[in-house]
């Protein structure tokens, strides 16, 4: 029962895959016609062996030499003609197959990558980068290959199989039956090995994805790798995952090399039987030499398609596995979505409120426990606390990167879940400790959140973030091309570009999440001045455990284990000892 539902699921995935071909129906028909024609033409030369043998080389009855030569000339011309037409048709259909494959591939990748962009942060926290990369790039490619090449090959094989079968039956049905004898055995073997192959291929893809993850992580964290002198360990990790995928690949090869020779042996045995029986009939004059030549020629052409048809099962299984992974991803609902009646809030005031907010990652224990908080526009709120206290989570709930498990987070009196995500995020700026710059010019990086920004807006944002001066000293100023991650810029410079990116959106709520943790003192001073200047009419959250950053705030919250344990001005908390105790603890733990 379970097997049947599994099979049905696979068929459903494959049928769904065909949905991506719908717009190319007419091209598919043309390709099928051309492929069919090319396949039929490939059968002609073997058939011509009969007149060539029986009317030219060794006629069973005497034929005048002139007639034999005339037939020879005619056949030579036909051989050339069939070859030229066949090759031309085959080349044209080959080109269109590639073209169609790319079109379908682009559609698939667009759908998968587009959907990936919509998924929530929680999804990305649980998935490996390498695996997602595998879905978008490799799995889609294998689906594209299956539709355009493997199915087309199956079509060609079927034409060959039926075409050759008819011709051979016409000559001698008894020998044809002999040729068909191994087919049930081949199907049986395909079923047995096919199931095993699919599971092995699944494991192989998993191992390849794991290897991708190792490479991605090591390259992304190359600074950590180098500063920890972990190159050797990374190499060992890579070798292990490489070895695991190589072992799995060998396992696949082992299965295939058991499977293919078994089939090959059966086919070979049948071939010998054809030689035997056919030879016997030629000797007895029941079959002409030309007919025997045709039989021998078609015999090997006949088993090619049989092998092709039988291996389609394994290929189908493989594709079904890739389709399952791709469609599973496409079917993953974004956890955070716009409500049907979501409100498009044109301009925020910036009043942020938390009412008894609780939050947990999945089934784990609560990261935030009943947070009650109100922050008004014009206020700079400092948030501090030990690592894992829930500081960043608090900020992410305002941005709706996560949704509260209980209670509500509201902005200007609206529950954030009732607002259109885009309208909310367009008015919130988030500056992270880790600066993320993309490959592109400085201007493009600043205008990332507002691509339509004018040059003047870009310059103004850079000036406000204290970035303009150093940008103008870059080789091509705002047109300087930055490498991935902003290679070539200092940490402080990268952070100032990130701040400019946020300021360009002119958000009413800005969150600085440990934004000065990795920058030099000069950048920190610039950021502090920027925060002070921006606070007019805006709501600003400063998440930090640096006293210099907390000093510029109007109020400080100390979070611990998801709860607000103290709240007050920096001076009040310093006097009460709560803040200094906490900061001292934090700084000491950092020093350690």
């Amino acid at each position: 029962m379970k097997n049947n539902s599994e099979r049905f699921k696979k068929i459903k995935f494959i049928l769904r895959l065909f949905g991506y071909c719908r717009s190319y129906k007419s091209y598919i028909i043309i390709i099928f016609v051309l492929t069919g024609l090319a396949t039929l033409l490939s059968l002609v030369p073997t058939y011509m062996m009969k007149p060539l043998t029986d009317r030219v080389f060794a006629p069973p009855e005497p034929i005048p030499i002139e007639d034999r030569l005339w037939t020879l000339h005619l056949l030579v011309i036909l051989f050339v003609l069939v070859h030229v037409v066949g090759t031309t048709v085959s080349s044209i259909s080959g080109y269109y197959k590639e073209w169609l494959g790319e079109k379908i591939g682009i559609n698939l990748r667009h759908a998968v990558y587009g959907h990936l962009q919509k998924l929530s942060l929680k999804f990305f926290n649980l998935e490996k980068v390498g695996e997602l990369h595998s879905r978008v790039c490799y799995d889609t490619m294998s689906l594209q290959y299956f539709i355009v090449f493997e199915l087309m090959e199956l079509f060609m094989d079927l034409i060959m199989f039926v075409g050759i079968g008819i011709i051979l039956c016409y000559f001698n049905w008894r020998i044809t039956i002999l040729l068909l004898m191994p087919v049930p055995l081949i199907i049986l073997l395909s079923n047995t090995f096919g199931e095993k192959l699919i599971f092995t291929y699944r494991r192989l893809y998993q191992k390849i994805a794991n290897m991708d993850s190792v490479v991605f992580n090591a390259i992304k964290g190359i600074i950590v790798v180098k500063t920890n002198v972990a190159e050797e360990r990374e190499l060992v990790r890579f070798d292990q995952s490489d070895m695991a995928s190589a072992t799995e690949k060998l396992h696949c090869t082992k299965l295939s090399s058991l499977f293919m020779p078994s089939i090959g042996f059966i086919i070979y045995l049948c071939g010998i039987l054809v030689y035997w029986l056919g030879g016997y009939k030629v000797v007895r004059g029941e079959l002409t030499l030309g007919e025997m030549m045709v039989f021998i020629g078609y015999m090997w052409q006949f088993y090619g398609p049989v092998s092709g048809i039988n291996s389609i099962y394994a290929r189908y299984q493989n594709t079904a596995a890739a389709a399952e992974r791709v469609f599973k991803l496409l079917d993953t609902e974004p956890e955070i979505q716009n409500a049907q009646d979501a409100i498009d809030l044109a301009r925020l005031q910036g009043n942020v409120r938390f009412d008894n907010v609780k939050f947990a990652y999945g089934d784990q224990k609560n990261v935030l426990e009943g947070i009650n908080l109100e922050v008004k526009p014009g206020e700079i709120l400092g948030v501090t606390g030990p690592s894992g206290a829930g500081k960043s989570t608090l900020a992410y709930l305002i941005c709706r990167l996560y949704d509260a498990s209980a209670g509500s987070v509201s902005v200007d009196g609206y529950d954030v879940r009732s607002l259109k995500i885009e309208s909310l995020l367009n008015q919130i700026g988030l500056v992270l400790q880790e600066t993320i710059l993309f490959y592109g010019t400085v201007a493009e990086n600043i205008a990332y959140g507002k691509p339509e920004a004018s040059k003047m807006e870009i310059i103004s944002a850079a000036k406000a973030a204290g970035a303009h001066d150093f940008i103008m000293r870059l080789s091509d100023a705002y047109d300087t091309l930055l490498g991935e991650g902003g290679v070539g810029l200092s940490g402080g410079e990268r952070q100032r570009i990130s701040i400019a990116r946020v300021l360009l959106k002119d958000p009413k709520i800005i969150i600085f999440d440990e934004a000065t943790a990795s920058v030099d003192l000069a950048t920190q001073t610039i950021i502090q001045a920027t925060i002070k200047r921006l606070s007019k009419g805006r709501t600003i959250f400063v998440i930090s455990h640096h006293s210099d950053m907390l000093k510029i705030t109007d109020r400080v919250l100390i979070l611990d284990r998801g709860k607000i344990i103290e709240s007050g001005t920096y001076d009040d908390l310093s006097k009460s000892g709560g803040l200094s105790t906490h900061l001292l603890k934090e700084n000491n733990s950092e020093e350690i």
Partner: protein
Amino acid sequence: MLTGEKISIYRDTSGILKAKIEGGEEYPVRPIRCFPFTGAGQYLGLFKIESDGTINEEIALISDLKKLDENSQKLIAEELNKTYPLTQITKIHSIKQTTKAIKWHVDTDKGERRFEVKEQRDICVIQPNLIVIKDSEGIRYQINSAKLDPKSLALLEIYT
């Protein structure tokens, strides 16, 4: 930000480019384009130059060169031509990939040129239609692909 109307540019007797702000203070200056490729005629930073040639703070940001008087425009244009000797490629005759370099044969606004590009990364797509190429001697060429003929575009396609 100071606008063009309040600044006049001149060369002193030693040939040093100077800016006079609102008819008062004068500084030796160097114009720097904010967007040398994507907005060459717009947004110029005028930077004060120290006697040793080091670039000091920005004293003005000019949104449009045309806001300056004609003489100032001419002097700035001269200076910018020295700083940004960018050659515009108007037609591509051939691009040949060899084992050591990519060899270009092109027509430019300054005549026919042949040059070599060592690395693929020296061909930078700044914007979809804007490509900047640095040759093996550090000379930079700009291509506005929207203005290229189909044959040149086809040659360029695989390198961008």
